[in-house]
């Protein structure tokens, strides 16, 4: 039982930190640029992607012995697409405003490299429980970077956190101005680049050391 726990822990750490999908594998950059102007959209996007990745990995992994290898992409896409449509409909029903802001990007989770990447590289070769944990881990890893980027962009770009003003009035009176670059898409590029640099240079995680 203990060994089992350690095993899951290892998969989790690998997905969330060591082989973080955005910072290490550099996947899913497109949506990371688009939905990180505000923290609320980033959080919802992160949750949506975590759910889709986790369940698609689970389903594909439990079917892995029955999928003919030459049509596996079609099967994987069918599973992922159904899950994405369900997620999209749920968002539209319960979080309509945010769903409108996310617009096309929830639908585009289908083409997000992380989902298909985990299905191809992990779920097809591992048992369902492992795959589910791996999907959750990668989803959280993606969300982590997304929320970090969104936090920095929202704070510097519009002076807010989760929609609340956090820049004290006396700073604005002294001449503080928001950083216009952060609201533009290049701002996300810079922030992601710096985060990748920072993560890969922290002691113990650099893949260049060995």
């Amino acid at each position: 039982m203990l060994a089992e726990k350690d095993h899951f822990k290892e998969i989790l750490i690998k997905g969330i930190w060591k082989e973080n999908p955005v910072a290490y594998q550099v996947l899913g950059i497109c949506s990371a640029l688009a939905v990180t102007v505000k923290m609320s959209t980033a959080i919802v996007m992160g949750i949506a992607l975590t759910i889709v990745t986790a369940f698609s990995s689970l389903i594909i992994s439990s079917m892995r012995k029955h999928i003919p290898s030459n049509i596996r992409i079609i099967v994987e896409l069918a599973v992922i697409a159904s899950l994405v449509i369900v997620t999209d409909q749920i968002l539209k029903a319960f979080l309509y405003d945010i769903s409108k802001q996310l617009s096309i990007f929830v639908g585009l989770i289908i083409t997000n490299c992380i989902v298909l990447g985990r299905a191809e590289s992990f779920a097809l070769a591992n048992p369902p429980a492992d795959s589910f944990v791996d999907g959750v881990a990668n989803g959280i890893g993606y969300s982590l970077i997304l929320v970090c980027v969104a936090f920095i962009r929202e704070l510097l770009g519009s002076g807010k956190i989760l929609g609340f003003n956090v820049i004290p009035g006396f700073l604005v009176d002294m001449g503080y101005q928001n950083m216009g670059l952060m609201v533009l898409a290049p701002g996300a590029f810079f922030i992601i680049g710096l985060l990748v640099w920072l993560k890969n240079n922290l002691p113990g995680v650099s893949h260049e050391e060995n």
Partner: protein
Amino acid sequence: MNKYKLTVSHAPFWHDGDSLFQMNMNILLAALPAAIFGIFQFGASAFGVLALSVGSAMFWELVMNMVSKKPLSIGDLDAAVIGLMFGMMLPPITPWWVVITGTFVAVIVGKMIFGGIGANPFNPALIGMAILMLSWKAFFDFDTSLVDFVFDFTELAPLAAIKFQGAGAAEMFSVGDLFMGKEVGAIGSVFGLGLVLGGIYLILRGYIRWEISLSFIVGIIVTAFIFNMVNSENYAGPLFHLFSGYTLLGAFFLMTENSSSPVNTIPMFIYGFLGGLMIILMRNIGSYADGTVLAILLLNLVNPLIDNIRPKALGKGENNA
């Protein structure tokens, strides 16, 4: 059999025993006339901006040295050069926090992250400048930021004037005034004569290459001349472009930054000429009044490609290269 082992490599081959400290000291010295002129023209606030810029650039390098546990490298004065170049591109009344943010981006993001001195693919001062110009556009409008100053010459930023009023506005500025620094602009870029003298000093001492500066100026003159010839109502003449904005600062101090400019002779000419071409294109067609910063960054990006044009190393065949 050959007894000696010869190493085949490409330029540079020769070292004259000069040190980084000496080189940077000379660059600082060469930039001083223009900087001091700026201080006299714009007063104490310009001095404050320059001092803060140089100081904070060295401070950020020190911080980065300590955080990354590398030997302290501020002694080679490279950070001071970055700080001075950066400060010279700023309007005289830039708020202090903008200056500090800019030098942070310039030194840490532009230089230290890429591996410190000699490893930066872009001119660090320009990186800082580009980020600031995109983030806080309002501070870099020379007309509004210098509105409180009283000058005895045309109180309009030359490049913004021709951008918004057409080339006819160029009549308001005489070329001599522009050259002698009687113009509205950044602290270190107004005094054309000082920049030219500094540049010639650096060229004579061998710290920058005349190929880059010369072909840059030729690029500007040729491109601006063609534009002016085709439509002299919309596009100002070559001399106006040469002596306004950041052009001369770019020609002698920014384009020639060591690690982001080519090392071979033919690429130097191409690099300089394309730089001049890009700047005039950005000024005449683009939306920015002065495209120097972005144009030189673009050329820095192209530099490794251009620098592939080099003499073939001896003894290397096509097949085993």
